[in-house]
């Protein structure tokens, strides 16, 4: 995962993710993190009060990167239809997750066992996809009458597909599910016919 700058703090955050992804949360030590990040223990202690707090900061940064990858591609396609913007965002997200399969597994699957604070952050990050998705309402037939929870249906079913692929050990092949994912995420707004068109356009 490429961080914008290579400051000691960013090196520690990335090292924390890689150590936890490789060894599991319980087995990950501050010693392994500082070695990988090439910082001293004193530098670590000056930045983070504990392993837990360091991990949560690292996880927040990771979620920002993942949501950011989607948002950047979605916004870059501003001139296109909503389904094309969604396709662009999802493609960028799947490619990033596939390129970092171990980190992807940590971000979406292993995180559940790391505690309530981490799970809460995960849910908040998923909620950040709701606003992009809800822009589909403007493209929808009978928009006013659509369910209030339409965005959550869309995001949730897409999330479940990605989660299932990663858990099955297929994180590296995630881009292959893009057509199905586009159908799943656009269908609640567009209906099955137009969602199938969006799927074919992928």
């Amino acid at each position, binding site marked *: 995962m490429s961080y914008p700058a290579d400051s000691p703090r960013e090196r520690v955050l990335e090292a924390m993710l890689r150590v936890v992804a490789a060894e599991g949360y319980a087995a990950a030590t501050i010693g392994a993190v500082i070695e990988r990040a090439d910082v001293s223990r004193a530098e670590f202690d000056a930045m983070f009060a504990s392993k837990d707090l360091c991990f949560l900061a690292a996880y927040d940064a990771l979620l920002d990167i993942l949501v950011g990858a989607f948002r950047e591609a979605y916004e870059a396609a501003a001139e296109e239809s909503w389904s094309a913007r969604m396709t662009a965002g999802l493609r960028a997200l799947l490619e990033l997750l596939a390129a970092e399969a171990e980190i992807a597994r940590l971000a979406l699957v292993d995180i559940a066992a790391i505690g309530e604070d981490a799970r809460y952050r995960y849910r908040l990050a998923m909620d950040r996809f709701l606003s992009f998705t809800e822009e589909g309402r403007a493209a929808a037939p009978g928009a006013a009458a659509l*369910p209030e*929870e339409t965005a*959550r249906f869309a995001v*949730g*079913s897409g999330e*479940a*597909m990605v989660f299932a692929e990663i858990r099955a050990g297929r994180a590296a092949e995630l881009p292959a599910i893009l057509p199905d994912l586009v159908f799943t995420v656009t269908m609640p707004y567009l*209906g*099955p016919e137009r969602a*199938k068109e969006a799927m074919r356009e992928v």
Partner: protein
Amino acid sequence: MERRPHSLNPAKRDRILDGMLETVGTDGYESTSVRSLLARTGLYRQAFYDNFSSKEECFLAAYDAGVARVEAVLRSAVDGESAWRGQLRAGLAALLDLLDTEPALGRALLVEVHPAGAAALAKRDAAMLRAQAFLDRGRAEAAALPDTPEAPRIAPEAVASGIHVVLHSRLAAGKPGELRRLLPEFMFVAVLPYFGSEAAHAEMRAARP
């Protein structure tokens, strides 16, 4: 597995399983211990260890029992309906009523299954596949109608996980409120991929109180 003498006492075992779902659903999986379970059920330590060797083992058995209960409720709700859409409405209504009556059961099965780990998640997945198989019966019924294009293969998975995630978010927030009020929206998403937008809107209107 080693045969334990008191496991022949199914009533006590059921009490432990119910108590496990209640405790996990109320306190969370990680905060639940054999001790807190015993405190809630009023059973003795020995009664627990006669039946289970650990909290983990007990939760997995409780998860199976909880899913079996939910599925029994669904089956009996669906029983009186012949058409898929009627079965769907009756089944979803029964599910939502059950979760409104027993929010701890819902939290244990849908939310706390995540911290409980891979073996519990595999049971959740198996239950989701059964739900998807039911949902996908909409396909055959839609195929009998003229001019209804076929839903893609992914449709039942999309519907099941969409409904699941809305329930999960309500239950995880701790204040599920009246889940039953979600019935019209659930009808919309379940009917949509098979019968199209017009039918989905009609089902949503029909399911409103």
